[in-house]
């Protein structure tokens, strides 16, 4: 399928899917960028900021696909929407911990590792499906993103496994982080209200199939590091795919767009 051959209902579903993909990467990349200068050691600072930059690039690719579908300029899509127009999963907008990067950041590294690892596993599954998407521009973008995401997944998997099998304190903090992420990670695994149309048009695999792949992978990894699988992840604070969000998203978009919003007509 190309832009010209999309039927109206298919186009609507595709746009919804693209917002989910773009906003997921956009918000988690932002949370990652807040760690700059605060990561546990200098090499991690280099790695994490590089990963965040890649992910911001991935969001940009998806926003450009939206621009081509008539949703407006990519920069405006990223910066000028209100929180209820965002389609990212709620767990990805959550702050890194108490404080801000400017004032007394008491960020939680275990939470960051768990959230990023779980997300990277799902992102890989999603891209593996998207590279065969019926919408050719999306399939092309997915193939590109996959070559970069390969390194992200590797990075977070190493952190996850190392910390899970490290000191007692590390294991305890990681276990608490898993419980915290688990309460809302179901939001990442869903395709939202247009799910049936998205799947019918073969834009991506059925969410239940991908959910199963994710659960199988995580269950195996947890077993490998001696932890128990807590059952299906939940969606306690609501579904971000419906535009339901927390105060954390407002803070994120306000900070992200502070400069852009001062004068949207300027070329930044």
């Amino acid at each position, binding site marked *: 399928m190309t832009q010209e051959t999309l039927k109206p209902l298919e186009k609507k579903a595709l746009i919804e899917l693209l917002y989910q993909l773009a906003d997921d990467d956009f918000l988690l990349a932002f949370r990652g960028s807040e760690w700059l200068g605060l990561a546990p050691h200098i090499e991690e600072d280099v790695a994490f900021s590089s990963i965040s930059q890649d*992910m911001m*690039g991935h969001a940009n690719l998806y926003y450009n696909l939206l621009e081509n579908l008539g949703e407006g300029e990519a920069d405006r899509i990223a910066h000028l929407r209100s929180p209820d127009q965002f389609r990212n999963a709620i767990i990805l907008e959550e702050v890194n911990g108490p404080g801000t990067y400017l004032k007394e950041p008491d960020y939680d590294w275990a939470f960051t590792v768990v959230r990023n690892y779980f997300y990277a596993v799902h992102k890989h599954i999603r891209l593996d499906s998207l590279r065969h998407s019926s919408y050719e521009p999306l399939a092309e973008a997915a193939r*590109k993103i996959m070559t970069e995401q390969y*390194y992200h997944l590797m990075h977070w998997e190493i952190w996850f496994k190392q910390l899970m099998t490290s000191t007692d304190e590390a294991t305890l903090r990681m276990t608490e982080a898993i419980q915290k992420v688990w309460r809302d990670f179901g939001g990442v695994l869903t395709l939202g209200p247009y799910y049936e149309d998205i799947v019918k048009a073969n834009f991506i695999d059925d969410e239940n199939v991908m959910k199963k792949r994710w659960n199988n992978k995580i269950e195996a990894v947890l077993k490998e590091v001696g932890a128990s699988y807590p059952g299906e992840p939940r969606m306690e604070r609501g579904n971000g795919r419906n535009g339901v969000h927390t105060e954390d998203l407002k803070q994120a978009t306000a900070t992200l767009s502070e400069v852009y919003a001062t004068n949207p007509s300027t070329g930044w």
Partner: protein
Amino acid sequence: MSELKSSMTDSVMDALGDVKDPEIASVSILDLGMVHEVDVTDDKVRISVLPTFSGCPALHIIERDIKKAIENVEGITSAEVKFVFTPSWTTDRITAEGRERLKEFGISPPPANHVMGEPWEIDCPYCGSTYVTMENIFGPTACRSILYCKSCKNPFEAMKPVADMG
């Protein structure tokens, strides 16, 4: 192809050879294998370029530099630059000359025909030693990794291998 068109295409290609990667000053976009297609019709040029890393901030600069370089070619009035994803840019596209120039810049070229998931073999760009350690897969830019040579005791960088994953 008419003789005129052919010589015009040569001039355009020459101009593209002068467009450097803003973050690796010794290497041109032709060396990096970023240029996919060049179409010269009358006084207009359409060129498709393969982005290296999607979040690379240098892409906008490269786009601008290409336009500038081509529009300076005598007989050309406008240039259109388009980024495309098919075929995928992979590190295999870097030319033999590009690999040499990367070394001059202290960056080890990526292994040719890398298969994703296989171990890399990276030699020190200064002394050629294979006795090196990987300090960080990620580096100062999206496309580079940081390494250390245990033989000549120099830190160096390497281009991160990127292979087409199908």
